[in-house]
């Protein structure tokens, strides 16, 4: 094992999120201890405290910063800028960090004119003490990001692949293709063609291994849109199988509602 000093310094950060993507790292049960030999977690609040071991609170610089969660408070905005300044490479993991997450629903003003302010009032009796931004946005909207790993949550294998690729200096084998590719490689019977089930697979970024159709439901797009997402054509197909306009709108306005291709399609059905 190499001397600690030469291991890449890695920081794991959390913004507005459910913690599921960070947990995916801790879920690498077979690899966790091996990972700890290859990289040095200098900032990983969920997994590591430094006070007890006598070391001072760690800060940058970081060779690799991993950010989970969306930017939804002024403080978080400052945090991501600082992290970027201190990091050689910065990757974002999960739907929150890459598209604003489910909480990006507050970015939309609905039919009743309900917006962020109104949402605050609904939840908090004294909203003046809540300090959130009107929008929940991805990290890439504020700083340059070297890689965006999609998913809600991200896929454990892909996270390991990304970290391995970073350590080795190669391109990560993470493909921007449709979920249908994974579904067909897996041999799953298409829920659209065989069951008339609405499914966002053709326009959604692969990476999950096509779980939902394997469990006989349609993909709900939690990995966000793939490149060349032909959402208009898919929406027309959904209408053909009996989906209403509100249903189609909701389908594109869910966990990755903030991703431009999905946001635009959802607006066409308002």
């Amino acid at each position: 094992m190499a001397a600690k000093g030469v291991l890449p310094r890695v920081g794991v950060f959390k913004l507005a999120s459910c913690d599921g993507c960070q947990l995916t790292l801790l879920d690498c049960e077979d690899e966790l201890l091996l990972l700890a030999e290859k990289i040095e977690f200098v900032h990983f609040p969920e997994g590591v405290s430094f006070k007890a071991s006598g070391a001072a609170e760690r800060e940058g610089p970081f060779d690799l910063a991993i950010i989970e969660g969306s930017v939804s408070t002024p403080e978080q905005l400052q945090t991501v800028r600082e992290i970027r300044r201190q990091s050689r490479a910065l990757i974002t993991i999960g739907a929150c960090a890459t598209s604003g997450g489910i909480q990006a629903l507050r970015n939309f003003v609905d039919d009743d004119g309900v917006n962020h302010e109104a949402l605050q009032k609904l939840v908090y009796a004294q909203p003046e003490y809540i300090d959130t931004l009107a929008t929940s946005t991805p990290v890439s909207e504020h700083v340059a990001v070297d890689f965006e790993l999609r998913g809600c949550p991200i896929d454990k294998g892909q996270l390991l692949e990304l970290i391995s690729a970073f350590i080795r200096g190669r391109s990560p084998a993470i493909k921007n293709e449709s979920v249908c590719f994974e579904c067909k490689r897996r041999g799953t019977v298409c829920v659209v063609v065989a069951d008339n089930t609405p499914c966002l697979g053709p326009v959604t970024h692969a990476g999950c291994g096509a779980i939902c159709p394997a469990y006989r439901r349609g993909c709900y797009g939690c990995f966000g849109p793939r490149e060349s997402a032909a959402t208009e054509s898919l929406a027309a197909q959904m209408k053909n199988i009996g989906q209403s306009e509100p249903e189609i709108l909701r389908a594109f306005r869910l966990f990755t509602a903030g991703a431009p291709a999905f946001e635009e399609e959802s607006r066409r059905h308002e």
Partner: protein
Amino acid sequence: MVDPKHPDSKQSDAIGQSFKPGTRLSMPRTGLATLFTLLSAEGFRLVGPTLRNGAIVFDDIATPADLPVGWTDKQSPGGYRLEKRADQRAFGFVVGPHSWKQYLFPPKETLYQATFDPVAQLWRQSGNAAVGSGNGAGGTAFIGVRACDLAAIRIQDRVFIDGKYVDPAYDNRRKASFIVAVNCLEAGDLCFCDSMETGPEVTTGYDICLTEFDDTFLVQAGSGRGEAMVAQLPVQPASQAEQKDLASGLARCRRQMGRQLDTEDLPGLLFANLDHAQWDRVAQRCLACGNCTMVCPTCFCYSADEVADLGEDPAQRERRWDSCFSQQHSQIHGATFQPTIKDRYRQWLTHKLASWTSQFGTSGCVGCGRCIAWCPVGIDLTEEVAAIKADAETPVPLPAYQPVPTAQAAEPFATLFATIEATVTEVVAETPDVVTLSLVMPRGYQYRPGQFNMLSLPGIGEVPISVSGDRNGIVEHTVHRVGNVSAALSALRPGATLGVRGPYGSAWPLAQTPGRPVTIVAGGIGLAPLRSVMRSLAEQDRTTVARNIDSQWVRLVYGAREPEALLFNRELALWRQNAALRVAVTVDHSTADWTGNVGTVTTLLRRKEMPVDGLYLVCGPEVMMLAVVRLLQTAQIPPENIYLSMERNMKCAAGHCGRCQYGPYFICKDGPVFRYDQVAFLFGRRGF
């Protein structure tokens, strides 16, 4: 249209190539269970149709009860439903979302493995990973192969084992397979095998062929193995009635087919109509989801990636089914050749129905109808073709299929994916982002200028690099640092080792250079594949060429973005001193101390005479080659006198993975050097 008797096919006797089909016999339905038992007893893994999740898929089966007895499929564009039959037929359906390629060409497969030797501190290839294994000790028996699927298997044979390079895993699995085919007496709703001449009758390439009636099966042996098995079945000669039922059933099946594909002149016709409005229309609907390519029994494109975990070993190179509908399929650093859905659909259809004939001597389509059923928006390629044909331009000629003579197979270093270890002896930094690696190659390694090698760094990747010269058994490779693999190659130091396989590809026509003017036009890194040509020409006896006319010399016209980007400066100076050569260099953007030409290569070339009998070798960014070619054409240079070197995404370098396709050509084996008239109909066109 498959020519089953193609003389160059390398299929073994085990799959019935030279076997005369036996007489048709009859057996009671219970004989099917006996056949299953016999196959299992011989150690075959049995796979065949079975019900799952609302469809008939292929899976492991043990007895005839596992078959979809009493079920049929109702299919429509974008729709598939199961329906109960009135009878108890076991094969009363056609095809579902699975094809047999999932067994012969699995969705995921390890190509290559390397382990790290900590003592020597280098990677060594380790064993033949998963080559043809994993399919059961005695091979796999495919139960219920339709004529269309049988044709599809034989079409994939052409890709993977009948070409210049043999895919060993596919070859092993194919040799270990036993085919129990089934005649179709009822057409499926989407079938058009009749117009593709791939069915409905099973004619060749099987071990046993069955035809199902209510009470009996007709049985026919199609190979020696099949015959041996049939001899153990409860058979007796088929009756006249059964023979008639077979003939009339097949005829009815043909009549029932509701669609057809007019294949007359289709390849040339599609390439003559690349701007037809129908492509725009279908692009509005197409989702580029890739389902059609995944269910298609002949589609073979794949991607190859490094799969290396955190530990030191082993590093693996893995292939996965890919598709021309994915963005990465046509992507190299700095360019995506098929960025739009229209480009991709057009690529798919022209490959399937047009390019394929040039590449493999048959159409790529067998008329199974799967792509129509499993397209979520129900695009029907027979309709698309009909729409184009309705108001089409006249067909253009496409290159003819060139079968590979058997003797030429297995060239040195041509074993697919196996690399040899080469050592770096020298690293020369040509420019800030270009280095030349000198590698010691094994004795007997030979290349021709224009060819390339695949350089492999386990755990990082493998890329094609042009050979840029050689000296005393050292072979030079000039690497442009554009991505992670090239960056890692650029960082190698003398003494380092890496994996190499090659040489691959076509060569510059050196044989045509003596006694005529030769002009070499290079842009940027494009000089690298041409350097060894220049060296040869520098030593060529050119006393017969008139020396007092500039245009009769060997001329190099070379340009780069800026002075710092010029390659091989010392060699350029040497060439300038060579009385046999003329060297003209230009840069797009000059610097304070640059005293040479400023402007593009075409600007420089335009000032020179261009003899029509000259040979013109061009290599550089595609936009530059396009401008040069246009200039040469205005100077009336015949297309046969112009040669280009092209670049596309490359993974296998063997004409299997499909990524480097350029219309009907594979850049890796038909190129990278092309004579211009070969590619004139496509060159400069967006989307290819």
